[in-house]
């Protein structure tokens, strides 16, 4: 049984007041809060097991290595990857995408090749491709988004040609909440002979993700959006592709042997993990995966879907409120603007009411431009949110209206 009060009690940060009001956290798409079990795992690592990994046979080094590699196994199971070698720890989604752009892009792109992205990508899934396209004289193509905030599938298909070498697409839009049909998109990409990378940063906290069932070649996500620590994430990559890719960065950990004449690279996944990794972060990530499994992703998805439906119907009734992103399939986020009120003016008023809501372009400036706005307000959900949080949001918006209009 899903016990919301018990779940909330696991998050110490939520038990506080902001400006004298109980904190209502509606910014989980930016980062989720951390349950006690994650905080404890990081703390226990530093208190008892801290040592460098994959080095030395002393007890602490072995414990640290076990903890770090065990976390990799947990993430492998969560994403249902075939092989633990396919799970590369990165600093987060951004680094995972940059890794593919640099290491895969440099070896696979030729002049005139194309990379296809969508209009709803986060800057992290735009800029790395722009950089590599410029270097390799390749072209970046952008599939448009409909007025409801869904991918225009017909246009996507027509942009997918024999020149397309890779499709990079967001699974769940951070700004709109749109869930993209990634399985179908992957099938289409593969039919066209293109590789498929999915930015899963906003999907993994809300949905059960199975990389084998999706069939994608690369999948990137961040622990801190999944109740885990910041500074750690994962690149899933199909083994054949990862093996064929050159290293991304050089340094310790990623080598088997080094001489000045020749360096032999380490096996997967270590080939892509140069330098001392974020060991505490990985262990915290592992604890976050345990947390997700304990509550159950299906249960989380059900709870959040019911909140999302409630929130959208409440916002629907607010005078002068325009929701941006009305896709049929949505998860996690509600974006909106208010007639006559700038998001930058509304957000601090909400803050003083204890409401943590994001204002801005959400690192999706092309998408904002597509909808003719420079910024929106975004309320986003986590497992700990309650129906009354959304009612408080509407009350906060009404308060802003009386102050601003």
């Amino acid at each position, binding site marked *: 049984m899903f016990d919301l009060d018990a779940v909330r009690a696991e998050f110490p940060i939520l038990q506080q007041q902001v400006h004298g009001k109980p904190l209502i956290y509606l910014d989980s798409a930016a980062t989720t809060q951390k349950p006690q079990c994650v905080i404890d795992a990081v703390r226990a690592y530093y208190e008892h097991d801290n040592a460098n990994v994959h080095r030395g046979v002393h007890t602490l080094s072995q414990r640290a290595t076990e903890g770090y590699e065990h976390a990799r196994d947990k993430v492998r199971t969560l994403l249902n990857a075939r092989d633990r070698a396919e799970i590369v720890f990165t600093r987060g989604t951004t680094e995972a995408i940059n890794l593919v752009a640099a290491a895969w892009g440099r070896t696979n792109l030729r002049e005139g090749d194309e990379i296809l992205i969508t209009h709803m990508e986060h800057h992290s899934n735009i800029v790395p491709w722009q950089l590599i396209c410029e270097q390799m004289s390749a072209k970046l193509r952008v599939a448009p988004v409909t007025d409801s905030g869904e991918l225009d599938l017909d246009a996507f298909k027509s942009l997918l040609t024999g020149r397309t070498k890779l499709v990079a697409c967001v699974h769940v839009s951070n700004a709109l909440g749109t869930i993209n049909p990634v399985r179908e998109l992957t099938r289409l990409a593969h039919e066209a002979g293109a590789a498929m990378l999915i930015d899963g940063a906003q999907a993994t906290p809300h949905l059960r993700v199975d990389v084998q069932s999706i069939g994608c070649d690369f999948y990137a996500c961040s622990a801190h959006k999944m109740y885990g620590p910041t500074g750690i994430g994962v690149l899933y990559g199909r083994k054949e592709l990862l093996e064929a890719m050159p290293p991304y960065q050089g340094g310790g950990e990623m080598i088997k042997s080094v001489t000045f004449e020749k360096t032999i690279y380490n096996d997967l996944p270590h080939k892509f993990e140069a330098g001392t990794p974020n060991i505490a972060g990985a262990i915290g990530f592992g604890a976050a995966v345990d947390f997700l499994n304990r509550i159950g992703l299906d249960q989380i998805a059900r709870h959040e879907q019911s909140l999302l439906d409630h929130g959208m119907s409440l916002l629907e009734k607010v005078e002068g409120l325009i929701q941006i992103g009305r896709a049929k399939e949505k998860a996690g986020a509600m974006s909106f603007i208010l007639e006559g009120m*700038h998001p*930058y*003016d509304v957000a*601090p*008023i909400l803050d003083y009411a204890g409401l943590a809501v994001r204002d*801005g372009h959400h690192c999706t400036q092309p998408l904002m431009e597509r909808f003719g706005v*420079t910024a929106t307000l975004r309320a986003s959900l986590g497992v700990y949110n309650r129906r009354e949080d959304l009612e408080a949001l509407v009350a906060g918006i009404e308060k802003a209206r009386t*102050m*601003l209009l």
Partner: protein
Amino acid sequence: MPQSDVQLDRIIETFEFLDDWEERFAYLIDLGKKLPSMEAADKNEANRVHGCQATVWLKPHLAAEDPPRLEFSAESDAFIVNGLIAILLSAYNGRSPREVAEYDVEGLLKRLGLEEHLSPTRRNGLHSMIGRIRELASHAANGTMEKPT
């Protein structure tokens, strides 16, 4: 004493009189709403102040007096930012380029208690505006400011 000092004193008095955030915010919004609009043609890329999350335009005008006096016009698309602009303009307008450069705006912001009520990104925006004003003042002092159009 520049004319705008009278207005600035009134702003400071009001801020000190109001004792909760809500009233101060409401006052800031009110100042923002009363800020005179810029000419539409002046809201162009050349006058954009970058580093603010809201869109901000700022245009200097050097009044041909002896010593010359700076008059800025500025506007944003957000009320609270316009409120901050109103405060900055009342602090800076009517001063010589040298006075603008030397003006203790940090002291003013501290006195108003504004910094603590602004988010870090908004503080950055405010400092971008101040930086631009100082830059324009130093151009004016060196005689390298573009001729007013």
